[in-house]
């Protein structure tokens, strides 16, 4: 291979971490960073103990509980025995192996994918894993980050490596400018709507174009977060000055003496001019409209100005059948205007949209207004204790409370309803999370994925509305 062969960012990170070539595109890949939470780790620790093995690099790990922590009354007994067992196991394991552990009552506690960047642990060019599929979030910094299963968690702890098959390169370019009222969430949903939930299968997606460059780091995280919903295991955005400024000064960031070397290394990571992508998709950002999902897969998405599609309009019989099933589950009829769907509950949170900008976006929409009486509950769940503190310093909590919203403690909450935060059967939920699967927010719950601004507007109106005219 000639030395000048242009490489993609993914190629570079792969090559930088290849410990051993194993043939047929398989490599033993070194893992730099590992985030650990309470649900997918207990058996991994147990496996280590059973085999008498140690953790190879404690300094590569941060452990934090998030999936099933309660979001209120934390000073009272947790009624869920399973959750208590998992939380206690994480604490005991972290102590036994002397890991950096952030307990539930620590100001830094929060969703793994919010605290990684917040602590400066997420950095360009690293390989990063976590026993959670939305690890793709960290790709916003140009980190190769992806979710793994419990036996792989144990494998990384013991060996600091994974045996991986190299993925293909895909580039999604979003040109132009994003219209006012649209956010990174709408870009993510529009991309998934365009490529489908299998569009990125077997690929790592690099996001490029003027819309991506203009996004804040928080917006890039929202976008990369949903790469997994587009079928890709990981997403990437080329690191730039915004990235470096975000990282600078955070607890795990390179220290002053190493900073310049780090930045110049990070600058070298972007895809070379002329690098080859196996698949290219181009979208025009000017055409993007606030998005709302109507079905039970993230690709079941339409603009808020649209209507629920008729199953007959899908080309393949299997899709038609799927659409009919989705409509039955969602209690919707073909042709119904999206703005005619009323909302019973609203959830603003999850690793997709629970950062300070999301909180500000909600506050800006609802300031001086009240939630509709028909909306039973509006949960605002910050992604971390630091987000919570920042929001309170800005007085956002007061705006939420004045509107009749419920301001909670940080955690995954109603994103997957593993704790007490659940929607009831048949209820329509406007949710800023990433998955609208059957039963995800509680048995029978009907999830509509939207941006924070759209969720806020729906909470006030009692049904979906176009936040651009709100």
């Amino acid at each position: 291979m000639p030395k000048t062969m242009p490489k993609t960012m993914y190629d570079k990170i792969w090559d930088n971490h290849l410990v051993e070539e194993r043939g047929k595109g398989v490599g033993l890949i070194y893992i730099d960073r590992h985030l650990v939470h309470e649900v997918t780790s207990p058996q991994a620790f147990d496996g280590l103990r059973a085999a008498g093995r140690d953790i190879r690099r404690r300094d590569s790990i941060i452990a934090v509980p998030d999936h099933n922590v309660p979001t209120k009354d934390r000073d009272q007994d947790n009624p869920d025995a399973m959750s208590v067992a998992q939380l206690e196991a994480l604490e005991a394991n972290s102590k036994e192996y002397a890991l950096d552990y952030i307990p539930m009552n620590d100001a830094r506690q929060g969703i793994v994918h919010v605290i990684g960047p917040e602590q400066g642990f997420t950095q360009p060019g690293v390989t990063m894993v976590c026993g959670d599929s939305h690890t793709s979030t960290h790709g916003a910094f140009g980190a190769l980050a992806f979710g793994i299963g419990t036996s792989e968690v144990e494998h990384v702890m013991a060996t600091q490596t994974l045996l991986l098959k190299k993925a293909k390169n895909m580039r999604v370019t979003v040109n132009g400018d994003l219209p006012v009222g649209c956010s990174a969430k709408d870009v993510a949903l529009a991309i998934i709507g365009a490529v489908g939930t299998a569009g990125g299968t077997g690929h790592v997606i690099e996001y490029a174009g003027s819309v991506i460059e203009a996004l804040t780091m928080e917006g890039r995280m929202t976008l990369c977060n949903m790469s997994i919903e587009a079928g890709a295991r990981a997403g990437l955005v080329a690191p730039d000055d915004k990235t470096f400024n975000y990282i600078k000064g955070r607890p795990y960031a390179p220290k002053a003496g190493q900073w310049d070397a780090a930045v110049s290394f990070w600058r070298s990571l972007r895809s070379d001019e002329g690098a080859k992508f196996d698949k290219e998709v181009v979208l025009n950002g000017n055409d993007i409209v606030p998005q709302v999902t109507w079905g039970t897969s993230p690709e079941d998405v339409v603009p808020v100005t649209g209507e629920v599609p008729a199953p007959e309009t899908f080309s393949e019989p299997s899709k038609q059948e799927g659409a009919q099933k989705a409509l039955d589950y969602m209690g919707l009829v073909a042709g119904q205007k999206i703005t005619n769907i009323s909302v019973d509950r609203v959830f603003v949170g999850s690793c997709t949209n629970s950062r300070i900008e999301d909180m500000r976006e909600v506050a800006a929409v609802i300031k001086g207004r009240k939630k509709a009486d028909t909306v039973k509950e509006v949960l605002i769940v910050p992604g971390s204790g630091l987000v919570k503190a920042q929001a309170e310093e800005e007085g956002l909590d007061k705006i939420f409370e004045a509107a009749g919203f419920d301001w909670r403690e940080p955690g995954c909450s109603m994103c997957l309803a593993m704790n007490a935060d659940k929607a009831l059967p048949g209820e329509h939920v406007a949710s800023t999370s990433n998955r609208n699967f059957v039963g995800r927010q509680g048995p029978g719950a009907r999830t509509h994925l939207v941006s924070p601004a759209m969720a806020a507007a729906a909470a006030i109106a009692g049904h979906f509305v176009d936040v651009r005219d709100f």
Partner: protein
Amino acid sequence: MEKFTKITSIATPFPRSNVDTDIIIPAKHLKSIKRTGFAAGAFESVRYDAGGTLIEDNVFDGPKYKGAQILIAGDNFGCGSSREHAPWAIDELGYRCIIAPSFADIFASNCIKNGILTVSLPQADVDALVMAAEAGHPITVDLDAQTVACENALYTFDFNPTHKDMLMEGLDEIGQTLKSKGAIADFEAKQKLMTPWLYR
């Protein structure tokens, strides 16, 4: 993981077809945060009556097959959910080898990961082994020679060479990767020079 070379033991006959992982370990026992503690719930529907009382002379707990390290099973053994708890439970019951006409793929690979040998033999041979097991004859499984011997009969079986190495050396996937310990350490030494800020 314990090395697997050759074992001689009496065998438990359980020649039912399509035994799924829900029979091996029912879902309600999966709530544990450990990878041990599944022995009590293993094969629950076979070992306990509807009221939850242990059936005294069931094949797993009765005196006849006590201490058996070999399980003789039916075809498509281990089908259904991919739960790794199934081999964990079988391991805890003391079995090191399962002989059956066929196994479900994921179950078989989960067995290797946990040091359990799965031997596939033609149905007629398995039938003969079931009879021998019921008669209390010991069976010898030799992984190196890839043979199963019982009384005067000798059967040979096929086995994936990589998996054979792993079992014979007592290596799970992590153990296999740790053979590259040297390369991993070299990588770290090099990376520490290039990107020292990743190390504390």
